[in-house]
């Protein structure tokens, strides 16, 4: 039975790598070596982090973050290409 979940979504064009999100929501967001956000778990926000996530969304100086609601069975918005298992050691992280 699909239930509603909230995801953290990054507008990759608006994002200029301020890094505020990684400070306000470290449980979900880390920064890559160029300063851009890596969102874990396909952006799914557990209830205990809902408040922090909202603060991160309003705190982003570039307004690049948003919260999107959807059914749990929806594949993440940043699913990207299907890198097949044969070319396998590339770990897919978003």
């Amino acid at each position: 039975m699909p239930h509603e979940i909230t995801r953290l979504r990054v507008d990759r064009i608006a994002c200029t790598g301020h890094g505020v999100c990684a400070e306000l929501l470290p449980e979900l967001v880390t920064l890559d070596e160029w300063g851009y956000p890596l969102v874990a778990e396909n952006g799914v926000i557990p209830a205990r982090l809902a408040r922090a996530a909202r603060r991160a969304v309003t705190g982003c100086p570039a307004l690049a973050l948003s919260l999107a609601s959807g059914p749990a069975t929806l594949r993440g918005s940043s699913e990207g290409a299907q890198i097949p298992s044969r070319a396998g050691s590339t770990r897919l992280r978003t």
Partner: protein
Amino acid sequence: MTPGRVRPGHATPPGEPGLPRLLPPAADLAADDTGLPPGLDLAAHLRRRGLPRFRGSALIEQAAAAGLTGRGGAAFSVARKLTAVAAGGRGIVVVANAAEGEPASSKDAALLWYAPHLVLDGLQAAAEAVGARTAYLGLHARREPRGLDLAAHLTAALASRAAAGTDRVAVELVETPPRFLAGEESALVAFINGGPARPADKARRVFERGIGGRPTLVQNVETLAHLALIARYGGEWFRTVGTADEPGSMLCTIRDPDGRVRIVEAALGTPLHRLLPLGDDVQAVLAGGYHGGWLHVADARRLTLSNADLRPAGAIVGAGVLAALPAAHCGLAETARVARSLALESAGQCGPCFNGLPAIASALAAVAQPRPAGRELADLHRWAGLVTGRGACHHPDGTVRFVASALEVFAAETALHARGGCSAIRRDQFLPLPAAPVTESDWR
């Protein structure tokens, strides 16, 4: 683009009835006595093809029954797209996408040259199906003076249609900069809207808010050509070639080991060895273009032109680019050259892309040198994971697929390079590459 060398594939795979569908048989091209360039004779086109039977929502039904998917590379269901756009309401716009950004692909150019009226029929049919009153046809601006003047060709075709009164919706021709990403759906829409040809964030879906903020349908020109035929012969007819999951035919741009380029219309599911020569002089096959993947020639010999076969093997059907890499060339060097070009074709909007792709290209260039490797392979795998899915469009994803497949397929060559050797005899460039963009005006 390889304009001067484009020829229709009259050598359709033997034993395939009902092909070619899109391109006229070679014999017709020679027997043109109207003095018009090939494909322009509207009357001959209508005589040969007849008139459409299915229109409007009936056409959408037939497209659904046909299982027609986009032929621009993304393979999205056409019926679903038509339905979604048609629900948009007022001011709907249709765009025929011939901005063939893939450098190794020239099938759209061939189709527009030899069968413009089929494409334009499909554009009108799609416009009617979604209730559009405005239409555009986007193609790369001609940069080579000796190449095909598609813009003039299409202008002439549109003029003859206007004279005959066949078109309900006027079509505006738009020439985009010759960027790899100019054919990306949201990039083409952004360009027609007056901005640079750069992709937009996917939250703003083109089928809801596209040109001028209106619901917009963007379809590859080959898709529209198939739609024009479905409008005449129905969805069931479309499925008489191809496979159950991947029905129909598609145009392929085939690059033979001797460098010759052919446009061939093939049924999906055709074995690759019937489409291009896979003899002992071939080491690998690139399937799906520069966002596709490499295949060992041994694998290619047993695989078919289908996503069911190609995706598990690390490649895709994409827009039908198939290139047979001669054993005399270095697969790593070819991949590195392409990766560098793809990095420079980044729209420069998303950090992971404009940082990650150059890093990948640079590391790959090092691996392609016959010298001991440092951290490059580890770096490449790390960056591949970092870059996938973290751009606004699929440019980083596709590039990673291409590079990852090269590291897999040319693993033996990589090991040889690390010992200071290289098995290649030739150093010249096999795969075609465009001139890199330099200034902002190259995106406008």
